[in-house]
């Protein structure tokens, strides 16, 4: 039995200039806020931007952006949802809304491969891929199926986070995968585990974003998010990101 889908993944992404995979290994460090707001900023700058939420169980980019999701249109494949902010968006929530989606690994791989094989991404400057925590199917399949990609690592300042994130950094470097840099989010002044890690692994610290209590009031409203402090700090990080290469 041959799975025909793997052969077309590269073709579906051929019009995408850069694929940026936002990962961490650790949950709750801000991968999804980072991905969503980075996509907003990128689109605002007039860059053609895609956002792919690959966190099936914990999909939340649509919640952060405050977007009502619906089944996508289809032409010769699935067309990403064009958000009012200009972002081309794909997420499992387009198909299952807020229903729980209990998937075992084999199903997760099938789902990822299906999305990669049938989604027709238009010309994009950036496709931002938001990953779930863990080192499981999602990241392994992105590594397996997508050749041209780069990783951005997000970590909070806490030792609990950094120690887990370090395992992922380790793995990516041992597999010779390109890591653009590390972002410290919800930064605490009292500790410097993240900058230590960035030195230890020779990876640029792309930026440090403080904890902003008011971010919660911006969640669910793309316009507010764009105007907020989180976006302001992120903008510096993203600027660097947009410059690299």
């Amino acid at each position: 039995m041959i799975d025909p889908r793997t052969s077309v993944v590269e073709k579906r992404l051929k019009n995408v200039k850069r694929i940026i995979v936002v990962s961490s290994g650790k949950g709750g460090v801000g991968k999804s806020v980072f991905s969503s707001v980075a996509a907003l900023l990128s689109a605002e700058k007039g860059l053609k931007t895609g956002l792919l939420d690959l966190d099936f169980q914990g999909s939340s980019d649509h919640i952060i952006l405050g977007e009502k999701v619906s089944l996508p249109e289809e032409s010769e494949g699935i067309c990403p949802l064009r958000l009012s902010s200009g972002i081309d968006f794909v997420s499992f929530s387009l198909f299952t809304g807020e229903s729980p989606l209990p998937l075992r690994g084999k199903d997760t791989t099938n789902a990822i491969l299906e999305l990669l094989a049938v989604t027709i991404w238009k010309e994009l400057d950036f496709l931002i891929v938001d990953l779930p925590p863990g080192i499981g199917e999602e990241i392994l399949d992105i590594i397996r199926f997508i050749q041209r990609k780069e990783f951005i690592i997000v970590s909070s300042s806490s030792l609990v986070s950094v120690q887990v994130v370090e395992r992922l950094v380790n793995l990516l470097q041992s597999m010779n995968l390109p890591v653009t840099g590390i972002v410290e989010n919800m930064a605490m002044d009292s500790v410097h585990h993240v900058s230590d890690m960035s030195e230890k692994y020779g990876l640029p610290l792309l930026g440090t974003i403080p904890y902003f209590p008011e971010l919660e009031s911006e969640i669910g409203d793309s316009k507010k998010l764009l105007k907020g402090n989180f976006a302001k700090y992120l903008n510096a990080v993203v600027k660097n990101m947009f410059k690299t290469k």
Partner: protein
Amino acid sequence: MHEWALADAVVSTVEEKVGKRNLSILKEVHIRLGELQNIDREIFVTGLKMMLRGKQCGLEVFKIDMEEAGFKCNYCETEWKLNGYPGIGEDEREAIHFLPESAHAYMQCPKCGSSDFTVAAGRGVLIESIELNGQEPTYND
């Protein structure tokens, strides 16, 4: 019509396996369409036709079988079919058409109510075998 993307995948895979310029050596390509994904066979065949345009091989090479969808509960091991499973509406059917794994959001084991089940058969599009002229079938395991 996202069937075309899948037809494209089938033709691309065949080209990858036998070489782009070599399609004339194809005797039969067996394709299996899983019931769950609810692929429109006509549209899929039209897609194949499109993808084969200008290539050294005709539509008649492609044999398409349908496979019934079957599920098995990981908890109590009950097996069931799609046919007869109640309460899946238009929207859910459409979601599953795009992404068969969506079924996990909409189905439970009819016996124990568990959401932890396996799609044991008939999920989506697979190539069962590629047979070449003058050779035994290859790639079927």
